[in-house]
């Protein structure tokens, strides 16, 4: 009897996760633990980083069968019956469908649109120049990624990190290089959290004390009808010129129309609260699960991930620099009426990038409040990065 008992215990232990744990699994679990620490203890984008990190943890528990990112990399046609095959697909695989099919990022944009006030942008449309300028870094990074050996599709997906917009980065990556989704999403959200650390030195380096101390004129009031027309006009123009940007821009502007119309308060409320929270959970956990030990075991994947982290940082810094550079150009053109610091807010990262502009401006003049002036380029950056993503998908997509 005892022999049967021990045999059963031995058999079960061989089938346990512990017996099947590899050093790579341990490494990935440690990385997941590190990101959980960053999100909880350090407050780095916890809304997304925490589910991403826990998704990574779930996917790296051997034999948990929660997620199979390697299968997704090679899958061409999905058989509906496969979804119900418990051995092949796990819970996170099912949730990952929303990423794979490009559903979650536009729905997140719906919520962002419902939360965003485009008033400062409408009051000062020139802010759009700064929103466009901050996207130049994306294309410079594309160049760098190509030189580092990535193919054009991978380079496009990596470059979009510079847009500092998580959903846009995920959307672009799923279209161009889905096999790199894990490291790109992690780099994008990590650098977004590091906006207050990365941007200020670049901003100080590129501006003079006099420029940083510029107090900008009060923005004009924006009428309700302007705010209602804005999302409709932007959707039509952007979608007609770059159809690939329609899912992101269309949903962003639909959410904004919910907000500004004032007649669908319940839809606006749901979009900016319940819906975006639910989608954020699904997006985070399924994206995190794509970073698995099996993928890390693929030849060259680790090196690629490291290159992505470096290039992501470069993209972010370049986008900040080009935004500030155009801010300086506007400063000169307007005879000193524009504070160049608002240019750095042209990277999306709403509203953190605008807050950084405000903070750096106040270091020179505590009575200077650049926040709303910086919100113009900041929300313009959301549109700009979506347009840049559409351009990259259009030029590089299959």
């Amino acid at each position: 009897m005892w022999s049967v008992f021990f045999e059963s215990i031995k058999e079960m232990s061989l089938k346990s996760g512990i017996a099947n744990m590899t050093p790579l699994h341990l490494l990935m679990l440690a990385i997941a633990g590190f990101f959980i620490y960053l999100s909880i203890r350090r407050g780095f984008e916890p809304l997304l980083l925490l589910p991403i990190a826990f998704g990574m943890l779930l996917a790296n528990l051997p034999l948990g069968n929660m997620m199979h990112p390697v299968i997704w990399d090679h899958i061409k046609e999905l058989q509906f019956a496969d979804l119900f095959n418990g051995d092949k697909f796990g819970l996170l695989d099912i949730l990952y469908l929303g990423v794979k099919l490009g559903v979650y990022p536009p729905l997140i944009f719906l919520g962002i649109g419902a939360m965003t006030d485009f008033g400062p942008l409408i009051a000062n449309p020139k802010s759009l120049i700064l929103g466009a300028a901050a996207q130049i870094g994306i294309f410079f990074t594309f160049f760098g990624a190509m030189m580092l050996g990535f193919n054009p599709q991978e380079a496009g997906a990596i470059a979009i990190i510079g847009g500092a917009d998580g959903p846009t980065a995920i959307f672009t990556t799923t279209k161009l290089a889905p096999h790199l989704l894990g490291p790109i999403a992690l780099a994008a959200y990590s650098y977004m959290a590091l906006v207050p650390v990365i941007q200020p030195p670049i901003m100080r380096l590129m501006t003079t004390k006099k420029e940083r101390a510029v107090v900008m004129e009060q923005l004009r009031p924006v009428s309700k009808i302007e705010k209602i027309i804005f999302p409709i006009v932007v959707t039509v123009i952007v979608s007609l010129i770059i159809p690939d940007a329609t899912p992101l821009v269309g949903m962003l502007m639909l959410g904004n129309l919910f907000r500004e119309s004032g007649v669908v308060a319940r839809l606006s409320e749901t979009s900016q609260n319940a819906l975006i929270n639910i989608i954020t959970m699904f997006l985070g956990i399924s994206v995190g699960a794509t970073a698995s030990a099996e993928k890390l075991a693929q030849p060259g994947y680790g090196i690629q991930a490291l290159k992505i982290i470096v290039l992501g940082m470069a993209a972010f810094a370049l986008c900040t620099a080009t935004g500030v550079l155009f801010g300086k150009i506007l400063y000169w053109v307007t005879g000193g009426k524009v504070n160049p610091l608002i240019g750095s807010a042209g990277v999306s990262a709403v509203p953190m990038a605008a807050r950084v502009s405000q903070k750096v401006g106040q270091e020179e003049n505590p009575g200077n409040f650049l926040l709303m002036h910086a919100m113009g380029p900041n929300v313009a950056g959301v549109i700009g990065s979506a347009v840049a993503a559409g351009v990259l998908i259009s030029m590089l997509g299959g």
Partner: protein
Amino acid sequence: MSLQEKLQISGNVTFVGVTIVFLVLLLLIVVIGISARIIRGFVKPPESGANEGPDQEYLVSEEDETWEGNNAVLIEQDGEEDPAIIAVIMAAITACMGTASGFRLNAIRRIENKVPAWNRSGRNEYLATRL
């Protein structure tokens, strides 16, 4: 892929990408500008300070000729004033003066506030970080 091909693709994507992004956003600037002008032609813009509240005397106290010796505020109630606010203002003045005697508060008037709402919000946020 050769270096020349890489340079060619990178140059093409960079040039076309930057051009299109700028063109689209410049077009939006033009359209927003035009639509704003058209709309302002039809819709009367809100008057400056219209939402800042009436520039009116918020509270008037009348000096009671028979009263002297303390700083209690005499209030002419018109049904709008919150006694708690009056008490807070009085307490703040007393704290600033360092004494509760030797002065009399006759009136509390709301001054016209031309500071924009977002500016006040920013200032409050800044002050909160110093508390």
